[in-house]
């Protein structure tokens, strides 16, 4: 077993078996190392690369990853898990760009990404591409070369996609029981939750269009909003009179939040005074969620457009990918009618 590989990529099955073989137990020291790893990841959003390459140091690196995840599992908090996953994925990605082709292939196998080499480019089956591309405008399928079910990506894009897959892998916690003794240490990680009072919208949001409300909900649930969504959300909120400071507070819920970058971006937007994109543009970004017929999100008024939005409301209730939608009001009504008829006939 290549221990260095396992320590660089502690989410691999190889790393897991290396840990088992080493006979390291989840004692207090190991848990403490996991706590430290999680603390660095949650507080800075980043994780350093490996400093030493001593065999024993490598094994404890892997152990710290395993115990960090055990602590996160004990909390089962979506924000903390996502933020941790972002940091782990970034750390792994830092290795990927200098990695040997052989190791990259090994990792792709591990992540179930079936890249095929094609000249200087790579080809990826479209379902995997849809799942793990970073969802920025550059990756929209309409502008990609796709043939025979395979999407063409550059070597750099391949690594970005791997990073997303790693994020998903790290963020998916096992369905396992955690010993109660872990709880006290785990609870200390709750310190890293964003401060709630900063994250609440104080402005009257009743006239926010469904697309904006949807983004706010997703942000509150610590989902990773794509870049275009964040950009439009910030433009909208600035236009509606929210202060940059308040907007930055909102973004604290994003699992990959970095105060410096967010502040820079929001202030840049304010200074540039960008116009709000139209509904058509929003739709082409893939962030329009209701046919409310308002032409531009800034024109949305609940009284006027609310009922059109209602009619397409199903799309608003997004949960986990693949979670089925709620009933439409129409369906609820039909069900009620049917049940009324049934009770009358009994």
């Amino acid at each position: 077993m290549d221990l260095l590989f396992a320590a660089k990529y502690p989410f691999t099955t190889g790393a897991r078996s290396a840990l088992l073989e080493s006979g390291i137990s989840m004692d207090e020291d190991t848990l403490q190392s996991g706590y430290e790893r999680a603390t660095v990841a949650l507080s800075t959003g980043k994780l350093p690369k490996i400093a030493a390459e001593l065999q024993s140091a490598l094994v404890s690196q892997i152990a710290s990853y395993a115990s960090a995840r055990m602590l996160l599992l004990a909390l089962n908090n979506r924000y903390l898990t996502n933020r941790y996953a972002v940091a782990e994925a970034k750390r792994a990605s830092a290795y990927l760009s200098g990695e040997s082709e052989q190791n990259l292939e090994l990792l792709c196998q591990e992540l179930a990404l079936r890249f095929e080499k094609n000249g200087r480019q790579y080809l990826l089956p479209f379902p995997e591409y849809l799942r793990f591309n970073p969802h920025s405008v550059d990756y929209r399928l309409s502008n990609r070369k796709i043939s025979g079910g395979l999407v063409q990506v550059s070597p750099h894009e391949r690594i970005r996609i791997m990073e997303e897959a790693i994020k998903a892998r790290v963020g998916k916690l096992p369905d396992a029981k955690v010993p109660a003794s872990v709880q006290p240490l785990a609870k200390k990680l709750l310190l890293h939750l964003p401060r709630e009072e900063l994250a609440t919208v104080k402005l009257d949001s009743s006239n926010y269009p469904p697309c904006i409300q949807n983004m706010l909900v997703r942000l509150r649930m610590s989902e990773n909003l794509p870049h275009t969504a964040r950009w439009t959300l910030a433009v909208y909120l600035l236009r509606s009179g929210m202060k940059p400071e308040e907007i930055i507070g909102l973004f604290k819920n994003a699992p990959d939040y970095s105060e410096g970058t967010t502040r820079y971006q929001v202030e840049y937007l304010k200074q540039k005074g960008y116009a709000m994109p139209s509904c058509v543009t929003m739709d082409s970004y893939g962030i329009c969620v209701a046919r409310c017929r308002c032409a531009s999100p800034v024109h949305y008024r609940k009284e006027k457009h609310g009922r059109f939005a209602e009619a397409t409301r199903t799309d608003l209730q997004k949960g986990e990918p693949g979670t089925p939608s709620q009933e439409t009001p129409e369906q609820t009504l039909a069900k009620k009618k049917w049940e009324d008829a049934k009770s009358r006939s009994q």
Partner: protein
Amino acid sequence: MNSEEFVQRLFSDYYRSHQPAPNSLEKREFGFGGFEKKIEARHAWFKSQEALSKFLIVNTPFYLSYSAAYYEFPDARPMPKKNWLGADLIFDLDAPAHECGKFTCQICLEKIKAETLKLIENFLIPDFGFAKPDFAINFSGNRGYHLHIRHQSILELSREERRELVDYITGTGIEFASFFRTDENNRIYGPLPTDGGYYGKLARETISQLQDGKGEIVQILGKKFEKPPNAQKLIDGIRLGNWDAVRIIDKEKKFNEILKTLTIKLSDQVDANVTADTSKLIRVPNSLHGGSGLCAIDVKKGISDFNPLSDAVVLPATEVKVEISEPVPKIEMKNQTFGPYGKDAQITVPAYFAAYLICKRAAAIG
């Protein structure tokens, strides 16, 4: 016997000898509708083919729909309790509004058939790599076609991912800038015929129309390209990625327009939502449609030869007397021409045509 009972009896008789047999029936949610409403109830579950067949014969709904999704507990509610296991990928193509109104004409039916073929032959097969056995096509029962893809690879796609597929086939989000680059001499370099996605489509379709000297693209490019020497020069250029071998005025605008001719037009957003909504109910293949009396029949023999107003007519030809309640245009069904009929006309026609008129609210049992 009133008109509604008449149609229901025809449907019931039909279901005695022809039962829709949806795949993985016990994992799907069912919905049904009456004469007035397409979906009156949902969250129904059938434990076996026999249970479904019996239901169709005894209770005979006017509309039968099922979930594209597979669930562990199809009848549980609310929705999350069903436990979603995956869903077929559905494309719903419906003829856009036309003066023919509810009596969908042959022109409209041909148009939507062409669009369905384009989706299959220009997108699903070459771009997404599906093979013919991976999808089932059926007539929607009224004005279009449903494509059901049941390939393992797409069952677990999320809504966002399905939405992205719809955006692809409709060309939503195409950026002109990513297709062409302009060099320092303002010369346009663009896609090669061998490229994937819209890149290759654009190059291949432009070359093919230039070769024919006619077509939408040639029209957009301008009269100049109806002349073979100009056309040939541009073709030779495009084969090498040089889209500037012949001077084109307003090229950016024109290439943008050309890109639009390559996309699939889903009639409106509602149908885009059919694909993206992973818990949507859709017509069960081979069930009868209460808005036409036609069958949402599997298109087995090849869609190019399929004619709904003949191949989807499955009800008997027994003569029936009906009274026309609103003007009916000339309609050709099963190689027989009917009408036009004025209001209040008393006519004797085959049961399948009577059912068609009744379902369209244009006649009543006389």
